């Protein structure tokens, strides 16, 4: 009975300080973004005086136009998480299609998909995003959608999948030679079913790591686009907050309460996601967890005089 969960347990990350810290950070920020907007003031209410320092009435002060910074921060976190998820998920889906299908099926399909992937890889990302964003945002008929966070997230997603695709393809190629895959094919399962049932589950940690990476890339990408004026100006995200602070001369006005929190929050979110990613890396490559553990034990033993030949590669 217990064995039923053994396979799942094998896939989950082992507990460690880093993982704990990462989950706590990401969890708190997500909770902040999802729940806090219900409790804060209206982030689009300019009825307050501008550039007020933090006080009891405004926890993080106000912006130049009188918006409450804390309210904006909550709405912005929600917006950025949305962009991150949509962008990360769309990138992941495309990476799965281009990477795993190419890696599993091989042959001419592999060649074509890999060519497309490599082209996307070498064409530099930000210039491509800028050009596409400029095109799409100026296209007629899109109206409000042109500057929405969904569109920006999609643009980031469809330009950011190439790196993950390469990684997934390499793994799919190696998995395709396993016995259980051969067994499934002999049993007559169709290619796609083999991918879904046999290969994908084994790649879950890797995909999860790529997804986390993709989410972070989308959040940072949106911040960069907002700075350049190509971001989702109709929504509130951490990126648009930073852009407003920068164009509103927050640094020159010494309004650190406006300029610092959004950037710090993005950095914290990234660190939390990276910490979780470290833990996932350790599932994919157990040596990353076991080797430092072993080294630590070795050093401890050496210090206590129980070591062999005084260190060597474990010095």
């Amino acid at each position, binding site marked *: 009975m217990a064995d039923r969960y053994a396979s799942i347990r094998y896939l989950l990350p082992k507990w460690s300080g*880093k993982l704990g810290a990462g989950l706590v950070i990401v969890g708190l920020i997500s909770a902040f973004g999802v729940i806090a907007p219900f409790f804060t003031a209206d982030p689009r209410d300019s009825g307050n005086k501008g550039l007020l320092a933090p006080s009891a009435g405004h926890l993080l002060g106000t912006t130049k136009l009188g918006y409450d910074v804390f309210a904006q921060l909550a709405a912005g976190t929600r917006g950025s998480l949305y962009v991150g998820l949509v962008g990360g998920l769309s990138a992941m889906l495309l990476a799965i299609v281009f990477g795993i299908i190419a890696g599993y099926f091989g042959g001419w399909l592999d060649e074509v998909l890999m060519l497309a992937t490599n082209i996307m890889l*070498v064409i530099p990302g930000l210039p491509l995003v800028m050009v596409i964003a400029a095109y799409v945002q100026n296209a007629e008929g899109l109206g409000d959608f042109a500057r929405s966070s969904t569109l920006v997230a999609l643009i980031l997603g469809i330009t950011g999948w190439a790196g993950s695709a390469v990684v997934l393809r390499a793994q799919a190629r190696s998995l395709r030679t396993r016995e259980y895959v051969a067994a499934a094919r002999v049993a007559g399962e169709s290619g796609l079913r083999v991918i879904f049932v046999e290969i994908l589950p084994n790649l879950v940690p890797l995909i999860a790591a790529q997804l986390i990476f993709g989410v972070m890339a989308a959040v940072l990408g949106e911040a960069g686009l907002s700075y*350049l004026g190509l971001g989702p100006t109709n929504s509130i995200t951490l990126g648009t907050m930073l852009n407003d602070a920068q164009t509103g001369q927050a640094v020159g006005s010494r309004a650190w309460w406006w300029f610092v929190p959004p950037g710090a929050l993005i*950095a914290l979110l990234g660190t939390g996601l990276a910490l979780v990613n470290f833990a996932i890396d350790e599932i994919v490559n157990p040596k990353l967890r076991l080797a*430092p553990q072993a080294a630590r034990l070795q050093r401890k033993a050496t210090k206590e005089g129980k070591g062999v030949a005084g260190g060597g590669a474990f010095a």
Partner: protein
Amino acid sequence: MVFYLRRIAFYLVTLWAAISLNFLLPRMMPGDPAAIMIGKLRRASGGRELSEETVKAIYALLGADKSVPAWDQYLAYWGRLLSGDLGVSSTRYPYPVATLIGNALPWTLLMVGAATVISFVLGIVIGAWVGWKRGTWLDHLVPATSLLQSIPYFWLALVLVAAFSVQLRWLPIVGAYDVFAFPSGPEWSWDFMVSALYHAFLPALTIVISSVGGWLLGMRNMMVSTMSEDYVLTAEAKGLRPSRIRDRYAARNAAIPSLAGFSIALGFVVAGSIVTEQVFSYPGIGKLMIQSVQGLDYALMQGVFLVITLTVLAANFLMDLFYGLIDPRVRSHG
């Protein structure tokens, strides 16, 4: 040999794809550059009427001739490219795009190139050291670099400028060289080089700070994996010095995947450099790209996008050749 031929073939195909994409995109973009320019001219002349010849001259230079079929335009585009004609900029009329790019490219190569190399070397070296000392407190350095990597690039740059350039006045605020000392522009003198390095320091520093983490992490992970390989154990059993094991056996092999991942990382560096040049008013092609997108200067946008792509392709190609050189496994079954 086959390996090299395959790589060359791949890069040629990618080049063709990039150029064709470059040809297509502005034609799909809305807005008529000639009409935009005429509008600007009319506003600037206070609403006075523009003469017929002025209007005709602008259309001749910037207007898209819709009567020519697309395929002929495509061939003509290739022809112009091969003769080095990238068109005329509409925001910086009447300067040819090739001139603008030619003036800007060296600065980007200098600053971004140096920053990338420094960041790569630092990342590999420190990553190797952290990987060597796995299990100690140094492992906690890695999340710190992740923090640095997650900071929005321009935020970091603006804070550094405010602190070091405006507040402390240790470093310059903008530019690639001291415009007051060199009003006629760049010259070949030692003083000028010193001024250029002084001005490149802060922009390059911000690029290094925000990108070193990626190299570091990759190298550290590879180092930890490599250290548990059998040949490292053999080397230790042979009684080799730890530093020799670290450098000759572990680090050399651990660095290879970092080189393989260079192309991905380079994309991020290019992106970072574009924002860097905007914040520091550094006269490179990244800034030209931003200005062209914001001003819908299609000829310039096309030209800069093409040059950036070509540069990245060239860097990747060189890296691929180098990689093929140092890793025989790739050559035998690439």
